[in-house]
Every structure is written in C-alpha cells, then in structure tokens.
C-alpha cells in the first residue's frame, strides 16, 4: 500500500491523535492547546482536500479494509465523493469554529479542544465508515463529544438543555442498536455493501423484520437530523450551547441526514424494498419545514432563531430525500453544503452582535458563572477589548450576507440551492404532484419567514442598538466568519462545477452497484 492508500483513514486518526495529545497537555496551557488544535485541524482540512481531489473525479473510490481482513468481514472505510465532501465540510467548519473559540470560549471549561477533536473524529468516522455497527460506534463518539461540548461552559440553561439532549439521544441510540441488530439477524452482515447485496436476497417472510429494523434505525437517524416530531430538542440545545459549539453543531444535524442517504444503498432499485420510507421522509420533511418556519418566526431570541433555521434546513433536505431521485438529491446536497457553511456563521454572528447588545453584562454573567469555581481567574478580559476598525460594517455586511443565504434570497448560493432543488423536483415526476406543489410553496414561504424574522432582528440589532455601542470584536472572530461566507460566495460563483460534483455524488449514491463493487470487488456488484 502506498501512503495515498491510507489517506481515507487519516481524517479519523488525526483528530484522535490530536485529542490524545490535548488530553495530556495540562489545562492551564491554553495557548499550547489552541496551537495544537488549530494545527491539527489545518492538517485535517489539507488531508480532506487531498481526499476530495483523489475521489473527486470518480475514478477512485477508496475502500480501506481495517486490519487487512477481507471485505464483508472487516470494517471498511469508504471514501467516495459524498463522504469526502462531508469530511471536508466538517474540517472547514471545525477550523472556523476553533479559530472563533480562540477569542474566549475555549477557556470556558476544561478539555474543550480535546472534545472538539474527538467530535471531529466521530464525525469523520461516521462519514467514512462502510459498516453499520461501526457507524453506531462513531455516532456514539460524536454524540459523547457533543454532550461534552453542549455542556461546555456549564450554567443552568446549558445543563437543562443538555439533560434533554442526552436523554433523547440515549433513547435514540437504543433504537439504533435495535435497528442494527434486527438487520443483522435477517441478513447476517454489518457491512453496508454486503448488506446492499443481501437485502435483495432476504426471504419474503423475513422482509418485514428487515424493514422494521431499517425503520427503527431510520428513526435513530432522524432524531439526529431533527425531523418533526423528533427534533424539539434541537433548537433548545443549539441555542443553549456556547456559540462555537452551536456553530459546529450545524454539521451534527447533517450526520443524521447523511446516514439516511446511505440507506439508499440498501433500499434502491431491485432491493425488494425500493421506495421504502420515501413517503415518510417526504412528509416528515414537510412537517419539519413547517415547524422550523414557525419556530423561526416565533423565536424570542436570535440564537433560538438560528436553532430553528437548522431545523428548517434539515426538513428541507429530508423532504428532498423523499424523492429518491438523483437530480433532487444533487440539489439537496448543494443545499446541504450551503446551509452547513452558512448556519454556523449565524451562530457566531449572533454572539458577536449580542455581545454589543447586552453591553458585556450578559457575557460577564456567563464568564463569572463559568469561572466561578475554577482556580483560574477570568484574566482574559483585556483581550476582548481590542476592537477592530470597521467592526460594525463587517458585522452588518456579514449578517446581511448570512441572512440572504439563509432566507434563500438572490443572488447567493442559498437562492441557487432552492432553485436547483425546485427545478429538480419539478422534473422528478412525470406529472408534478400536488405534494410537490405544496413543498415548493413551503420552501418559498419558509424563505419569506426567514427573511421577515432576520429582518426584524437585523433592524433591531444594527439600526437600533448597535449604533450607539459598537461591540468589541477580535480578529480571530472575524476571520472564521469571512472564511465561511467566502466559501458560500465561492459556491455561488462556481455553482456550475459545484453542482456537477453534487450530481456525480448523487448519481453514485443512487446506483449502488459501483459502491458495492468498490467494497466487495467487481464480482459482487452484479448482485445488487
């Protein structure tokens, strides 16, 4: 094996190593920890870019057999376009949020960077694994880290929200186990490619057991994705989390969606259960959009609104997945990339502008609470004071761009995403169904609602409050926002190539045979 052949496992092992090293560094060496964490994440992004380049043209699909055992028996990692894209998204997002946290939040409690790196390990593992139970393990890794991060900084709100978050996800994990084991009981395998082959061979009398297993498994994924009525925890948790954590959580909800996407592999054409669950995804997604939209409007605070925006984006993608159509999926993937980059910006910006709005008082309350019991003194206050020139302009423009992205207003990628999705939806069916019309209407109305809510908040913040007092913002807080918005801009300008990539990824996802062949070898592909 050459070094390039190992690249697919690096996004998992590198953050793990970083996490270990960070564990062994003492807490008081904040700066060292920060440097290690940032360096590791930069490396991770670099590796993910390499991976993306390697699999991007579709000629290589990395199938990495752990322990060198043959394919259906070993745990395999699979690097294809979709997983490579997700890994890169999470890396970029992590880089942005870690940088952002450097201003203050990474010191609000012990082991922040460790947890962050291990979250990345879990995320990348979940994206790359080709094994159903291994997926569970990485789900647990990322969940465990997310529990820690959600509670980072402590405080009544975080702990209350964390309690709910943990309770619900523990229940969901039980469902995951039930689902996986049921599927194993009728197919005798855990390898996803092998499953794709064996699902078609499950005898009729066992098929409902298989489908029950898959459905229960799906519920576990949908809880993470925040689908109505399983996702009430999401806005509360995201809003209560510290801002960099809320920001990185934007990709957490996408993991559930990603997992659902991977289920296509088993329930595609010729599997004997084609179209399984599509209706549920569609109507669930629809309901989720409605609920998220309502929540966006009703949210009493900006950060809760941001949380509901995550719900809307989840609902949108889920509804798209209900089409089980490569074109629509491609649109949904484009939308996913866009919202994954834009939503975190909102979480970060909220913190920056609220900081000005509450005139440090709220923050001080938080930090006092956060440091109240520690040996360390809150000695970092003076660092917050370095205000950047044109802060207000930066904040205003970023907020506006962010709002435009999230409301799906032209001309940015948010709009393009809506356009490509609707365009694909209208072309997905021979004659456009009433349900599709409803979805189109809902997508547009949800954009309007987001616009109204963001407008309301934006005017209040920038035109009423901030005018008198400009919040003090540090460069490390500006750079990540610019990075993410810049990427959205790139996604807008290079929409054509980006969509080409998404279409290829979606096509690959929907054919299945090539995935199976990549994992099990050419002979197996025919069976799927």
């Amino acid at each position, binding site marked *: 094996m050459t070094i390039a052949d190992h690249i697919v496992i690096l996004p998992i092992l590198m953050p793990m190593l970083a996490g270990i090293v960070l564990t062994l560094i003492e807490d008081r060496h904040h700066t060292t920890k920060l440097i290690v964490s940032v360096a590791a994440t930069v490396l991770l992004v670099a590796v993910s870019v390499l991976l993306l380049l390697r699999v991007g043209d579709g000629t290589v699909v990395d199938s990495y057999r752990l322990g060198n055992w043959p394919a259906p028996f070993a745990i395999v990692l699979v690097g294809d376009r979709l997983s490579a894209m997700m890994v890169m998204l999470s890396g970029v997002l992590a880089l942005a949020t870690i940088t952002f946290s450097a201003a203050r939040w990474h010191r609000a409690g012990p082991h922040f960077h460790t947890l962050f790196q291990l979250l990345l390990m879990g995320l990348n593992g979940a994206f790359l694994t080709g094994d159903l139970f291994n997926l569970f393990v990485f789900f647990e890794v990322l969940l465990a880290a997310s529990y820690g991060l959600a509670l980072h900084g402590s*405080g*009544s709100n975080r*702990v*209350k929200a964390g*309690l709910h978050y943990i309770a619900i996800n523990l229940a969901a*994990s039980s469902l995951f186990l039930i689902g996986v084991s049921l599927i194993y009981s009728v197919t005798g395998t855990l390898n996803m490619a092998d499953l794709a082959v064996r699902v078609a061979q499950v005898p009729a009398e066992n098929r409902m057991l298989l489908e029950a297993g898959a459905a229960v498994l799906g519920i576990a994924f949908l809880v993470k994705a925040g689908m109505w009525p399983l996702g009430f925890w999401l806005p509360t948790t995201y809003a209560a989390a510290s801002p960099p954590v809320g920001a990185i959580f934007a990709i957490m909800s996408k993991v559930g969606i990603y997992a659902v996407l991977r289920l296509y592999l088993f329930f595609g054409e010729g599997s004997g259960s084609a179209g399984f669950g599509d209706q549920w995804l569609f109507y669930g997604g629809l309901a989720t959009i409605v609920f998220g939209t309502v929540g966006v409007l009703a949210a009493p605070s900006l950060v809760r609104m941001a949380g509901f925006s995550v719900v809307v984006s989840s609902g949108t993608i889920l509804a798209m997945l209900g089409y089980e159509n490569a074109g629509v999926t491609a649109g949904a993937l484009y939308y996913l990339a866009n919202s994954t980059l834009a939503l975190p910006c909102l979480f970060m910006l909220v913190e920056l502008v609220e900081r000005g709005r509450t005139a440090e008082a709220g923050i001080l309350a938080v930090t006092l609470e956060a440091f109240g019991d520690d040996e360390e003194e809150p000695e970092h206050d003076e660092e917050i004071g370095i205000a950047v020139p044109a802060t207000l302009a930066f904040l205003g423009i970023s907020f506006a761009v962010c709002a435009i992205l999230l409301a799906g207003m032209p001309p940015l990628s948010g709009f393009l995403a809506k356009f490509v999705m609707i365009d694909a939806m209208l072309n997905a069916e021979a004659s456009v169904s009433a349900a599709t019309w409803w979805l189109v209407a809902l997508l547009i109305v949800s954009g309007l609602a987001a616009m109204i809510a963001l407008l309301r908040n934006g005017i209040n913040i920038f035109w009423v409050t901030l005018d008198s007092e400009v919040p003090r913002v540090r460069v490390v807080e500006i750079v990540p926002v610019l990075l993410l918005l810049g990427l959205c801009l790139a996604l807008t300008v290079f929409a054509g190539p980006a969509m080409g990539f998404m279409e290829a990824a979606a096509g690959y996802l929907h054919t299945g045979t090539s995935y199976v062949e990549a994992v099990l070898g050419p002979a197996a592909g025919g069976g799927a």
Partner: protein
Amino acid sequence: MELILALSIGVLASSGVWLLLRPRSFQVIIGLSLVSYAVNLFIFAMGRLRSNAAPILTDGADVSAFADPVPQALVLTAIFIGFAMTALFLVVLLAARGLTGTDHVDGRER
C-alpha cells in the same frame, strides 16, 4: 428458552420505557438502564440462542458448534457505551439538580 427470554426483554423494556416517561430525572436514569438491559438482551437474541456453546474455540471442533460471536461482541460494546452514558447522564442530572434546585427533568416543578 426463546419465549422466556422474549418475555423478559418485553418486561425489561416496558419497565424501562415507563420510567423513561416519568418526570423525575432519577426515574429516567433507572429507565435508561433498564432499557439498555432490554436492548442488550435483544441484540444478543438476534444471534439466536445456544446453550453451552460459548464461542471459545476448542481444538478440532466444528464452527457450527459455537454460538454466533458477532452479537456478543456488539453487546459488549453496547454495555460499555451504556455504562459511560449512564455515568454521564448521572452527572448531568446532578448538575441540573444543583443548578435548578429540582430533580424534575424540565428543571422546574411541573
């Protein structure tokens, strides 16, 4: 055997779910534990039941003489993760009790 185990799984799961739906955080943690017993047994059952066929290889024995080791390995992982999560939930429960002054799962009485 199958029937007994199935019934047990059912009773464990019922008791656990009942507690999961109760308002006190301590009830929830016991519920989660009971549910995880049920789930562990459920996973275990997915490998079918074999008595006195522990998958510990003896020389010359045919592989069909052993119980399915895969669900066992999965349960082992699940037990550990379950333990970790119980611990975490307990600590969060304590923190919530400390910060809110109540052991109601919503952080306030009713």
